[in-house]
C-alpha cells in the first residue's frame, strides 16, 4: 500500500468540436476520502468523471488515478479496472437475468471479488435475490448498480448520482452503506445533485462550473459558509423576529438578557449548503 493520493489531476483540459467542456482542472482526492463533485448540468462534471474512469481521453493534463493513467489501453488498462468500481448514471441492461445471476456473473470479472451474498445483503436486495432485474423498482435497480460497482472490492469507487429516484428511507440506508465502504478504506468520488447528500457524506466538496473547479472545501466551510452572516430568529409577543449578524453569539447573549432567560423559539441559521452552492454557480445573486 502506498500513501499517494487516490486521484491526482493537474491541468485537465477537454475540448469538444465547438466548446471547451473542461478548462483546466486541478484536483487531488486522498485515499479513504469521500469527495463530492457538485455542479450544474453541462458544467463539465460528467466529462471530468468519465475521463477519470477511462471512458474518455483528455486533450491535455496530467492524470493519475490510483497512480495510473486511465487512458491507457490494452491489458494494463484492464488490470487497473480490477481496482476501481463504477456506478453509472443510468443503465437498464441485463433485464432478463436475476439479481443473483447478474452479481455472480460480474464477480467473475474480478481478481478479488467480494462475497456475492454479502454484497447483495449489503445493498439490501436479499429479498429480491431471485427476482428478474426488470421486476425491480427504480431504487432497487440502483442498488443493484451499486452491488455491481463494489463486487470487485474496489479501492476507488465512482458513484454518479447514486440516489436519484430514491425515497428518503432508501436514501438513508444507502448513505449507511457508503459510510460502511468508507470505513473499510474505500475512496469514493461522488457526483450528486442533492446538497444534503454531499453534506451528509462528503469529507470535501468540489464545485465545478463552466469547466472550472471554483472551490474545494469541506461542506461546513464551503463558500465561506462558516463565516457568512448568520440569521438569528426568535418570537416576541407572538411576532417572528430576525436579525442578520456577523456575531450571532453576541446577539444571543443580548436576547438572553432581554428575555431574562429562555429566548422563545430561538434559531441561529448559517446559510445552508444549497444557498451557498446556488450563489457560487450564479443561480442566485
Amino acid at each position: 500500500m502506498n500513501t499517494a493520493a487516490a486521484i491526482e489531476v493537474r491541468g485537465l483540459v477537454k475540448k469538444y468540436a465547438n466548446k471547451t467542456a473542461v478548462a483546466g482542472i486541478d484536483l487531488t482526492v486522498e485515499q479513504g476520502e469521500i469527495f463530492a463533485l457538485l455542479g450544474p448540468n453541462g458544467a463539465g462534471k460528467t466529462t471530468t468523471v468519465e475521463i477519470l474512469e477511462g471512458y474518455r481521453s483528455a486533450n491535455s493534463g496530467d492524470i493519475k488515478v490510483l497512480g495510473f493513467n486511465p487512458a491507457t489501453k490494452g491489458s494494463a488498462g484492464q488490470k487497473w479496472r480490477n481496482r476501481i468500481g463504477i456506478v453509472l448514471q443510468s443503465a437498464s441492461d441485463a433485464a432478463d437475468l436475476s439479481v443473483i445471476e447478474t452479481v455472480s456473473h460480474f464477480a467473475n470479472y474480478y481478481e478479488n471479488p467480494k462475497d456475492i451474498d454479502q454484497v447483495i445483503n449489503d445493498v439490501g436486495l436479499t429479498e429480491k435475490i431471485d427476482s428478474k432485474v426488470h421486476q425491480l423498482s427504480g431504487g432497487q435497480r440502483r442498488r443493484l448498480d451499486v452491488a455491481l460497482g463494489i463486487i470487485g472490492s474496489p479501492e476507488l469507487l465512482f458513484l454518479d448520482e447514486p440516489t436519484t429516484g430514491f425515497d428518503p428511507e432508501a436514501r438513508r440506508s444507502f448513505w449507511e452503506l457508503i459510510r460502511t465502504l468508507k470505513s473499510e478504506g474505500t475512496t469514493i468520488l461522488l457526483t450528486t445533485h442533492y446538497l444534503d447528500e454531499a453534506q451528509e457524506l462528503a469529507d470535501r466538496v468540489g464545485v465545478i462550473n463552466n469547466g472550472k473547479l471554483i472551490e474545494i472545501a469541506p461542506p461546513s466551510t464551503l463558500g465561506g459558509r462558516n463565516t457568512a452572516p448568520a440569521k438569528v430568529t426568535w418570537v416576541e409577543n407572538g411576532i417572528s423576529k430576525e436579525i442578520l449578524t456577523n456575531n450571532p453569539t453576541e446577539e444571543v447573549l443580548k436576547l438572553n438578557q432581554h428575555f431574562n432567560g429562555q429566548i422563545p423559539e430561538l434559531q441561529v441559521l448559517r446559510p445552508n449548503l444549497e444557498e451557498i452552492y446556488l450563489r457560487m454557480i450564479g443561480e442566485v445573486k
Partner: protein
Amino acid sequence: MNSLKVTLRIGLLRGSLELKQFLRQRESVVFTLLFPVILLFIFGSVFQDTIAPGVTFSQYFVAGMIASGLVNTGFQQLAITIPMERDSGTLKRLRGTPMSVSSYFIGKALLVTILMILQTALLLFFGSVMFDLNLPTEASLWWNFTWLVILGSACSTVLGIAFSVVPKSGRGASAVVSPIVIILQFFSGVFFVFTSLPIWMQQFAAIFPLKWLTQGMRSVFLPEDFATQEVAGSWEIGKSALVLILWLIVGLVISIKTFKWSRE
C-alpha cells in the same frame, strides 16, 4: 498465457450468459430462430414447381434458407442487439470492468455458433422431412457444408459487429438492418432462382457474401448436374471460399477499428 486463459474463461461465461438472456426473450427466439423456419413452410408450400429435372423449387429454397439462417443468427441478430446494448448502458458498464473486449466478442461468437447450429438443424430437419431436401451422402459434400457454415457464420458475425455502429439507436436498429437482409435475400437467389433475376441484380448480389453462401449450399444439397444451371455453369466453390474469406477479413478489420462502447 494466464491472461489468455482468463479471457477465454470469461468469454465462455459471457457466451452462456448471452444464451441465457437470448432464450429468455421470447420475441428474439421467435424472430431469429423460428422466422426462417416459418418462411421455409410458406415458400416451400407455395412454390412446388420443378425447376430442373429432379429439382423442385422448395429444395432450391431450403438450400438458400440455410445460408440465410447464418445471416439471421449472425449479422442481423448482432447488428440489432449490439446497438440496443449500447443504448441500455450494457456496453458502457462492461467497459468499466476488467473484462476484455476479446471476451465480449468470444461471448457473441459463442451465442451465434449455438444459434446457428440450432437453426441449421431445424432447417435441415424440416427441409428433409417436409420438402424432400436430399441430405448429402458423400463425405466431401459434408466437408464443404461444414466449412461453408463455419466460414459463413464467422463472416456473418464480424460483419454484424462491424455494422452495429451504423444504426443511430437500438430502437431504430431493426428498421435499418432488416430491410438490408431481406433485399440481399431477394438479390442473392433465396426467394427466386438466381439465374432468373435481372443481370444487374445478379452482379450486385455477387459483391456480397450471401450469394456465394447460397450457391455453396446448393452445391451441397442439389444434384451435382444442377451445376450447369448456375450462372458460371459450375458451383464455383473455390470462388465462394475466396469471397467469404475476403469479407471475413474486411469485417474483422472494420469491427476492431470502429467498435463503439457508447453512443457518443
